[in-house]
C-alpha cells in the first residue's frame, strides 16, 4: 500500500510499504477514505518528539471502511467508522472510569518502559505518534490496523459526508474536553490561546457550555477571523499586548478560565521563547511554554486553566507561584476520545456543531508531503489539510 512515512526532521515521503494484517482477535483493518494532518503532527515534523524511527507511518486523524475483522471485533465489513487517536482496551480500571487516554493496555509492554521512566507511568497508545506511544502505524495511508476495534471506532450512518465527521477522531473532542476542563459557568469570560483547530473548536464549545464572552488570541489574521465568526472577540498578540488587553477587556478581573490550545511550540519573539528555543536546540526536553505562562499570569484569582496543548518534556520558569498564590485549578491531558465521540456525533447530526469550515485544503494522499509543508509554512491560510487516498491527482 501507499503511506506517508516520517524520515527525519522536515522530511516526510509517500512510499510503498507492506500492508497491515490482523494480528490480534479484536483487530480490524480499515480502508482509509479520509485522514487529516494534525497540529501535533507538526511537532513530529519539526523533530520535537523523541523515539520516532525512519519509515514510521504517521497520522492519527482518520476514518474509513471496515474491510477485515478479527474474530472478536464487533465491526462488520463495509461499515464506515471514525477511529479515535487514542488506543484503549475498554476493559482495564481506567477505561472503566471512562479515562480512555489513561488505558493501561493500549501500549505494548516493551514500549511502556520509556513512559514509566520519563513520566512515572506509561501513557496511552497512540496511532502514528512515536515508539514511546506504541509504535503503531498511523492512518495517513491506504489501510491501517486498528486494535481493540470493538471499543474505539464509532459507526457513521450512510449519507453523512466524511468531512462532517472526520474530526471526531481527535480535534473536536479535544477542543470540547478543553472547554469542559475549564469548568465554564454561565456568564464566564473564557480566553483561548491559539486559533488552530483545537482552539477554534474550544471557542465553539465554550459558547455551547454557557460562556458569555470568549476572547481568542493568535497572530494569524485569518484564524482570528474564523474565531470571530463564532462570536469571539480577538487579540492579535503581534499588534496588542495580550495581558494588558485581557485585563482591560475584563475590567481588571482577568478571564475566569484560560485555555492553552498552543502547546510546546509557541510562536512569537518573546524573551522567554527565545531562551526556551535555545535550550530545545541544545538540551532536549525543555518545552517552549510561553502560552501556558501567559494563561496562568492572566487568569483571574480562583480561576481555571485548561491545557489541551501538547507538552512532552520539562518546563523552565513555570509560574508555580502564580498558580498557588492565585488559587488556580489546572486541568490537562490527552483526550478521552472514546468517551466524547457519541455525544459529539449526535451534535453534528443535529446540526448544532459544524466542523467543515475548518478545511482549507483537500489533497490526494500522494501529495501528503506538500500538505505538511503548506500546513507548516502557511499557517494563516492553511487551517486544515485533508488527505484522500482515493482522490485523483490534479494534473
Amino acid at each position, binding site marked *: 500500500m501507499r503511506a506517508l512515512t516520517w524520515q527525519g526532521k522536515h522530511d516526510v515521503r509517500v512510499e510503498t510499504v*507492506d*500492508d*497491515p*494484517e490482523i*494480528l*490480534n*482477535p*479484536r483487530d480490524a483493518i480499515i480502508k482509509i477514505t479520509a485522514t487529516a494532518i494534525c497540529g501535533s503532527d507538526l511537532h513530529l515534523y519539526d523533530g520535537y518528539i523523541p523515539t520516532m524511527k525512519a519509515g514510521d*507511518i504517521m497520522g492519527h486523524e482518520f476514518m474509513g471502511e471496515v474491510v477485515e475483522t478479527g474474530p*472478536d471485533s464487533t465491526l462488520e465489513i463495509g461499515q464506515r467508522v471514525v477511529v479515535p487517536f487514542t488506543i484503549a*482496551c*475498554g*476493559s*482495564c*480500571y481506567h477505561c*472503566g472510569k471512562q479515562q480512555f487516554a489513561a488505558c*493501561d*493496555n*493500549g*501500549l*505494548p*509492554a*516493551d*514500549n*511502556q*518502559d520509556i513512559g*514509566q521512566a520519563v513520566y512515572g507511568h506509561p501513557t496511552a*497508545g497512540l496511532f502514528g505518534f512515536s*515508539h514511546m506511544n*506504541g*509504535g*503503531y*502505524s498511523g492512518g495517513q495511508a491506504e489501510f491501517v*490496523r486498528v*486494535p*481493540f476495534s470493538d471499543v474505539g471506532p464509532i459507526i457513521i450512518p450512510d449519507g453523512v459526508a466524511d468531512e462532517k465527521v472526520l474530526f471526531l477522531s481527535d480535534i473536536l473532542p479535544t477542543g470540547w474536553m478543553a472547554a469542559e476542563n475549564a469548568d465554564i459557568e454561565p456568564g464566564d469570560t473564557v480566553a483561548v490561546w491559539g486559533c488552530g483547530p483545537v482552539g477554534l473548536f474550544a471557542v465553539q464549545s465554550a459558547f455551547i457550555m454557557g460562556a458569555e464572552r470568549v476572547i481568542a488570541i493568535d497572530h494569524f489574521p485569518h484564524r482570528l477571523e474564523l474565531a470571530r465568526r463564532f462570536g469571539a472577540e480577538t487579540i492579535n498578540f503581534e499588534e496588542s499586548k495580550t495581558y494588558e488587553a485581557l485585563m482591560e477587556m475584563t475590567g481588571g478581573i482577568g478571564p475566569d478560565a484560560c485555555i492553552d490550545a498552543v502547546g510546546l511550540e509557541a510562536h512569537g519573539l518573546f524573551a522567554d521563547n527565545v531562551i526556551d528555543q535555545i535550550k530545545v536546540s541544545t538540551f532536549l526536553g525543555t518545552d517552549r511554554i510561553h502560552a501556558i505562562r501567559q494563561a496562568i499570569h492572566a487568569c483571574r484569582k480562583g480561576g481555571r486553566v485548561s491545557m489541551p496543548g501538547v507538552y512532552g518534556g520539562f518546563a523552565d520558569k513555570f509560574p508555580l507561584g502564580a498558580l498557588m498564590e492565585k488559587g488556580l485549578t489546572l486541568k490537562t491531558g490527552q483526550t478521552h476520545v472514546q468517551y466524547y465521540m457519541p455525544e459529539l456525533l449526535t451534535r453534528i447530526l443535529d446540526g448544532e456543531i459544524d466542523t467543515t469550515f475548518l478545511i482549507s485544503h483537500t489533497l490526494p494522499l500522494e501529495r501528503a508531503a506538500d500538505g505538511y509543508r503548506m500546513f507548516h509554512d502557511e499557517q494563516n491560510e492553511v487551517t486544515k489539510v485533508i488527505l484522500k487516498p482515493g482522490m485523483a491527482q490534479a494534473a
Partner: protein
Amino acid sequence: METQPVRATSDDAPFSTAKSSSDDDRLMSQAVTINRSPGDLFQFWRHLPNLASFMENVEQIELLDEQRSRWVVKGPGDSDVEWVSRITDEREGEMLAWESEAGADVPNSGTVTFRDAGARGAVVTATIAYDPPAGTIGRIIAKMFQREPAIQARRDLRRFKQLMETGEIATGARNRRLLQEGKN
C-alpha cells in the same frame, strides 16, 4: 536456598525497595493490579505451561508432576538454560511459592501472591531471588538474570495483565513480518 533478607528500614515500604540492601542484585519484586478476581488469576498461573504465553524469555515449561516442572529459558547467545522447579507452598487463590531443584543452571526461588483489591481486581506481586553461578558464563548469565530481571519481570507482568484483562497481548506491529522481527 536462603531468600529472606533482614529488614533494613523502619518504614512500611516493601523490602525490595530498600535503598541499602546487600541483596540489591539478587532480589527483585514487582506488583501489578489486574482487573480480574484473585481466583481467576491464580488458576491461570497455577497451570504453569500458561506462563510461557506471556513470559518472553521462557521457551518451554513442561509439567513433570503436580509439583514439578522443567523450564527451558533463553540464555546468552543461542544457548538455553534449564532447571526443574518445584512448588514448595501454595494457597488456592492466594499464593504460590517455588524453588529450583539441585543442578539448576540458574538457581532461583520466589513467590507470587494474589491479593483481593475490591473494585480494582487483584494485586499480583512477584518476588524472585536468583543465585548466579560462578565463572565467565556465570557472569554473562548473571548479567542477564541479575540486572535485567526487574525489567523483564515488569514487562512479563504487564503482558500477563493485558492477556487477563483484554484477552490479547498488545503489539504496535503492522503485520506478521514486523511482529516476528520484533519491530514495534
